[in-house]
């Protein structure tokens, strides 16, 4: 039994990873310190601000609240996993174009929350965007531009999906 270091296996951004870490180490710290994925930020460290948001088994989670043992065999997606083959995700493009990022600390979390939202709801309305991003705080208070970025990114993402469907035919 242990404060010893079991090996934790996870899929991170599509790659199998094995990490030796104390089971109570936060997923956030494992991502940043052990896997050097520093895109995920720490804000409040208590699940209030959403800076550390990642997706785990298809759900949005605050990685600061997850002991890494509970991520054993999980499928994790971080902001580094959003771009595909060097091409930015439509949400990332939209945040750039619409001024959705200022200081950048909240941005990875905003992107992950937005990605989660549009995967389940490809055409979210403003109320749904506000709800989907309610757990993500921007201290530069750029919320309106962030919401506009999500609308633009969602539209572009569904266009790409349509094109993709055409190409596949």
């Amino acid at each position, binding site marked *: 039994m242990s404060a010893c270091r079991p090996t934790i296996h996870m899929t991170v951004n599509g790659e199998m990873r094995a990490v030796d870490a104390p089971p*109570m180490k*936060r997923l956030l710290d494992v991502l940043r310190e052990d896997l050097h994925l520093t895109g995920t930020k720490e804000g409040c*460290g208590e699940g209030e601000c959403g800076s550390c948001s990642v997706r785990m088994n298809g*759900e949005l989670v605050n990685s600061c*609240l997850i002991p890494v043992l*509970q991520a054993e065999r999980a499928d994790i997606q971080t902001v580094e996993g959003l771009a595909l083959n060097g091409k930015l995700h439509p949400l990332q493009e939209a945040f750039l174009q619409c001024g959705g990022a200022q200081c950048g600390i909240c941005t990875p979390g905003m992107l992950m929350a937005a990605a989660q939202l549009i995967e389940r709801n490809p055409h979210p309305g403003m109320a749904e965007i506000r709800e989907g991003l*309610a*757990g993500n705080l921007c201290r530069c208070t750029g919320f309106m531009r962030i919401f506009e970025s999500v609308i633009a990114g969602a539209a572009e993402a569904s266009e790409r999906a349509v094109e993709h469907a055409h190409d596949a035919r």
Partner: protein
Amino acid sequence: MRGNAVTHELIAPGNLAAVLELLAAEPGVWTPIAGGTELMVAFAAGRLSAARLVSLWDIPDLRFVRETEESMVIGAGVTFLDLRRHTLLAAELPLLAKAARWIGSIANQGRATLGGNLVNGSPAADSSPALLAYDAEIELVSVRGSRRIAYRDFHTGYKRNALAADELLYAVHVPRRFARHRQYLRKVGTRRAMAISKVALAATALVENEAVSEIRLAAASLAAFPVRLYRTEDALLGQRLTRETIAAARSALLAEALPIDDIRSTAEYRRRVAANLLEEFLLEIAREATRP
């Protein structure tokens, strides 16, 4: 002072039987942790006293919803996002679905469990007023077997409850017989999302022949734990909803509530707002009752 992962032990037996064996073998030694939305906050701040933790996260024996003729049975490991996505639950138990929607954020809802919310026992717990208004029962389990108690008897003091050292909260049984009742739930906090209640009020009531024939009132943040407002209920039972009855109910609530001043609000504000919420509900059902 930050939490240090090396000083806490965490194991994940993966099934209910193994967790219960562990709790029975060393009662009081192991602290269960489910989605971590409370304990990991304490851990990060360096104030998690539990040295040995056992994970309940994603144990299938605890993450289920079953329907019987009388009740919806909700496993303690069901998350608030699970609750929101369960269409039958949302239709049958609108107050619980509403409470699930306003707990924290989407990320919190995907991890926070119903059982965790109840065992943590915050006076401001979001799911508690709804469950009290629905007169829910809870099922506790240990290697010795299982037992059911009324949820209203579960909390016994500030952050204290009826669980024995070797017991786990297994499930919540919510009666389905409230479909005909008028139902009410409103939370007052600093903003719509992510806010901890300053005060919340839940109610179910039946008005027959212009008189209140059944009523259950429950509140968060009006006492050291989530409570039923029995004396306020007594002021309403059997009464017609006249202006005088409503005034009497307000007085009963003001006398019965025992809120405190804290960082989120004051006792005075909580008392007054709770009375206003009660009045809002009573006026609503009074209007319904007199509608031709």
